[in-house]
């Protein structure tokens, strides 16, 4: 039979496996916090394929394009496999010696650590312990400064905590879903499925976004297409409509909130006509959205960078909180004002204390907390003053240790970031690839990634799950906590950093963080889909829904906060007539260090593009696909154009995943004073056609 057909032989590269010892190993995708399960197919210690895992509760066997292309990069030829000192291959021994030498004696002011959104909880915990015990500094941060620092500043006073309140599994219970500043279809495709399911069952979906994104196209019933940076005006208007029409939830307000009268007084002064002018959103649509949300049985807000990455980020978050407190849509499954932390350690690294103002478990940095951890860790003189934030560490620290973070691409104003990194006395970068940041490091340390090590992650809805080790890391690459531990040992702290396994570290985490106390490796191995914290004891099932009885504020009540609209830091002007907004696409992840090295993803989009309205393009005499020079006050880029009606006149968009076409060369580092969140979403640029000469 085989001879008769067209002579197609079976694919040779897979067919050398004559004795299959093939096993299917379950795991969770390493990209976003949709947290989708999948099987890796393993043979003789090598991953040879991946298959759907239909019994996993979050995604039920479904994956996005990134989830369908997870494992090949583990064996990519560019994986870092040996420690590098000034670009030369070295040994762990020599690297640790040099690092210890260089770190020793650096003052707590001059030293900083920037941690990761991708490391495990165990790895994050060890990193912050190193900062505090060994270097006596609270100068420790991670990438959440750039996404949800505004959430902590905004939701903290409102409800007592900046966490997702509902389980993602319950989102489809809502009959009105408000997607504020989140392109959920591209950035959380697994969770977008739930919104789509709800919509198919009659749920009304409102999207707040200046662009017509895939989210708008696939999911929106109402698209509030606002001018960039005018979110506060829209949200205040929605609040006013709800109050004017008497649609607030009086019972809830009375029982569970304070400061309603203050809000009422403030809102009475809002001029809706003015709002229409500022935002370019029609009052009809604002009204329709407000009414739909207020009248819903279960309203759910899902929000992300479109709300937070502004100089008024924390203000915007406060207004979203007002909306749910006004309507009572919080404290029940499928409701809440829910920050969408995108990184798989977005929640976890924060829980572990990789933050300048928090020790593990959200204990505020102060004398009392320092003493508490001195007792727990058996050490003395822990730092008790808040440390520097992300950009301050980059701009002012002389000696910096970075783990799994790529600020050359992810931080604003890249030219200035480069300058600061180059001016550092000593920079250590620990990563899996030679990222744009690692290229500037004095010492580069090769790390193990994802299923090359055992560890836990805490997903978007406070769900703690475990990644099991399935393959060995390449070459000399090691697990991040092992690396940090050995630097500590080299610096004389062996007795405080003496762990033999991730499990050892997790057991210590349980004693430090009450929310994790009831979670154990044993329980995690038995459970499918993870355990939600708070989980105070081993027989506690976990807490899918937060704030069911009271809030975490000192008085247990929800607090209304009145916030005025303020315009963005760098509006467009004659010299720079366009507003640039930055964001993401589904094909890439973050700074692209993983996705740009994955064939099926890279080939979809090898470089960035600038999305521009056809009328604007015509005035600039640029055709689709032609290159343009885009300049801001901080730098310039040569980039291909993508002409589209999905964006409004005067506004352009660039995805930030790329090295050569790096959007952050242009962006504005000015920040929200309440949380030091840079205004990634708005800066002013001018655009010129590339002169062919």
């Amino acid at each position, binding site marked *: 039979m085989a001879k008769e057909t067209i002579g197609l032989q079976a694919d040779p590269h897979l*067919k050398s496996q004559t004795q*299959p*010892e*093939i096993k*299917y190993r379950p795991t969770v995708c390493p990209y976003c916090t949709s947290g989708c399960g999948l099987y890796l197919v393993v043979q003789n210690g090598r991953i040879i394929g991946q298959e759907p895992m239909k019994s996993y509760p979050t995604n039920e066997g*479904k994956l996005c*394009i990134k989830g369908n292309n997870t494992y090949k990069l583990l064996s990519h030829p560019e994986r870092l496999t040996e420690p590098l000192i000034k670009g030369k291959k070295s040994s762990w021994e020599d690297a640790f010696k040099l690092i210890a030498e260089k770190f020793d004696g650096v003052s707590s002011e001059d030293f900083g650590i920037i941690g990761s959104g991708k490391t495990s909880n165990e790895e994050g915990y060890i990193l912050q312990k190193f900062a505090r015990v060994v270097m006596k500094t609270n100068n420790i941060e991670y990438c959440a400064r750039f996404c949800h620092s505004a959430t902590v500043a905004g939701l903290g006073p409102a409800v007592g905590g900046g966490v997702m309140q509902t389980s993602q599994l319950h989102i489809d219970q809502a009959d009105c879903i408000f997607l504020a500043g989140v392109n959920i279809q591209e950035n959380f*495709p697994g969770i977008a*499925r739930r919104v789509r399911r709800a919509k198919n069952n009659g749920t009304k979906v409102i999207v707040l976004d200046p662009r017509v994104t895939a989210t708008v196209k696939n999911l929106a019933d109402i698209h509030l297409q606002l001018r960039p940076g005018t979110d506060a005006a829209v949200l205040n208007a929605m609040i006013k409509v709800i109050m004017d029409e008497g649609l607030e939830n009086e019972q809830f307000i009375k029982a569970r909130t304070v400061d309603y009268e203050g809000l009422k007084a403030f809102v009475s002064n809002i001029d809706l006509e003015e709002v229409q002018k500022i935002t370019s959103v029609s009052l009809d649509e604002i009204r329709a959205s407000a009414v739909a949300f207020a009248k819903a049985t279960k309203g759910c807000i899902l929000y992300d960078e479109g709300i937070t990455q502004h100089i008024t980020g924390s203000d915007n978050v406060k207004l979203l909180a007002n909306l749910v407190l006004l309507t009572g849509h919080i404290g029940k499954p499928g409701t809440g004002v829910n920050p969408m932390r995108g990184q798989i350690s977005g929640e976890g690294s924060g829980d572990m204390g990789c933050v300048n103002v928090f020790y593990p478990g959200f204990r505020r940095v102060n004398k009392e907390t320092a003493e508490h951890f001195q007792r727990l860790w058996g050490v003395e003189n822990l730092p008790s003053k808040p440390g520097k934030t992300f950009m301050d560490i980059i701009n002012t620290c002389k000696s910096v240790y970075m783990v799994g973070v790529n600020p050359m691409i992810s931080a604003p104003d890249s030219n200035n970031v480069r300058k600061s990194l180059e001016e550092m006395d000593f920079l250590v970068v620990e990563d899996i690839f030679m990222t744009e940041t690692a290229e500037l490091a004095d010492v580069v340390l090769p790390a193990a990634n994802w299923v090359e090590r055992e560890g836990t992650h805490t997903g978007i809805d406070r769900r703690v799950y475990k990644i099991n080790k399935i393959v060995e890391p390449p070459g000399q690459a090691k697990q991040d906590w092992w690396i940090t531990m050995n630097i500590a040992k080299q610096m004389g702290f062996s007795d405080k950093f003496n762990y033999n396994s991730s499990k050892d570290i997790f057991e210590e985490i349980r004693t430090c963080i009450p929310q994790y106390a009831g979670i154990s490796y044993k329980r995690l191995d038995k459970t499918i889909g993870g355990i939600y914290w708070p989980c105070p004891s081993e027989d506690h099932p976990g807490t899918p829904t937060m704030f069911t009885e009271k809030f975490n504020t000192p008085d247990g009540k929800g607090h209304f906060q009145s916030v005025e609209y303020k315009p963005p830091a760098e509006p467009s002007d004659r010299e720079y007539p366009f507003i640039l907004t930055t964001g993401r696409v589904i094909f890439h992840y973050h700074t692209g260090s993983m996705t740009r090295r994955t064939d099926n993803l890279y080939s979809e989009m090898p470089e960035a593009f600038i999305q521009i309205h056809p009328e604007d393009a015509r005035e600039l005499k640029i055709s689709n696909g032609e290159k343009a020079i885009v300049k801001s006050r901080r730098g310039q880029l040569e980039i291909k154009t993508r002409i589209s009606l999905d964006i409004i006149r005067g506004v352009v968009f660039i995805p930030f995943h790329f090295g050569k076409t790096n959007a952050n060369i242009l962006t504005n580092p000015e920040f929200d004073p309440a949380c030091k969140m840079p205004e990634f979403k708005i800066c002013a640029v001018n655009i010129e056609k590339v002169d062919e000469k």
Partner: protein
Amino acid sequence: MKTGELYIGISSEKQIVEKAENGGVVTSLLKYALKSKLVDTAVAVKKGKNRYEGILSFITEPEEVEECTGSFHFATPGIAKNVKKYLDTYNKKIAVVCKSCDARALIELAKIGQVNIENIIMIGVNCSGTLAPIPTINILTESGIDPYTLICEDIDEDKLILEFDGDTQKIFRLNELEEKGLGRRKNCQRCEYPIPQMADIACGKWGLNGEKGTFVELCSTKGKVLFEKAVSNGIIEIKTPSKEQIKRRKQEENKRIDSAKARQKADFARPEDKFYWLSQIQACIKCYGCRDVCPLCHCKRCVLERDIPETVEKGVIPPPPTFGMIRLFHVACYCVNCGQCEDVCSADIPISALAHYLSKQATELFDYESGVNMDVRLPLSAVPEAERANKSTELKAIKR
């Protein structure tokens, strides 16, 4: 023994009969095939952490086969595609436990040289349909039962019977579930091949009415040879089924075929909304899941990965509707309604219905029933004499 004959078999190994849901014939045949080196690998589904997780296993140790005993209605790995991807059927022999959809897919793959049918023994199992695990887990949780205490499930007539730890039982009526969009996977509801006669052996329990045993049909020479060897070596004890039992088995089969045909009629008819399928496809987010799991998708250079503006344009999301449709047109003739595409569709598009619908059109046009007969050539790669003799410009169904 002769091809086409029917037997009632029961394993001669006590521990297998105890574990087995029926006569343990499938388990025994696999074990025997491995032990006697008739095959190198047995492919079957093992229970994972719980009853909802079925892990495809490539077994080389005969004893390990016993861990696969039972029919896991919630486990639907893409068996045919996994065999093609991970095993070398040109150099090694395998025995595969398969439902009709798996067997049909393997046959289609064999026609295009992707697997070597000579080295594959297909031990088919009767199938009333499979279910997606999570919706069932959700209903059970809502009705206050811990879904993970499920010990065993079965589909009997129109009932889904679930047995839990502690002797609890819960019964659902399938039509009630299916009206709500739950119950069996949609492609299963449309399946008109409840007895896998295209495999080498077909095993099941219909017709037995509770008597312990496995109803066996010898569908091919390969199947007959294996079964005969197993019986003559004392692995399986057999007896002849009664006329009544054979009649009942046929009735069960026909019942399911009738309901499948009715379901097809309902699923394929969209009279009011011409744009229904277009609006569904527009939700696509280019995950390539359907292409990755479809057993028939085998091209080394897939058209979906090309960069053709407005058709399958790179880096655009949502992609143009042609992205989802092109693949369907490529596999239309061969679609075996396995439902894998719909299982993994990230946008919850009912893509299997569309694929199945197209394949029915292709079947009529080319008089080609996919996945049932190795000797019938693919319509788009073989031109029979009758077709060459067709002088008109009309596409008429040509008897092949």
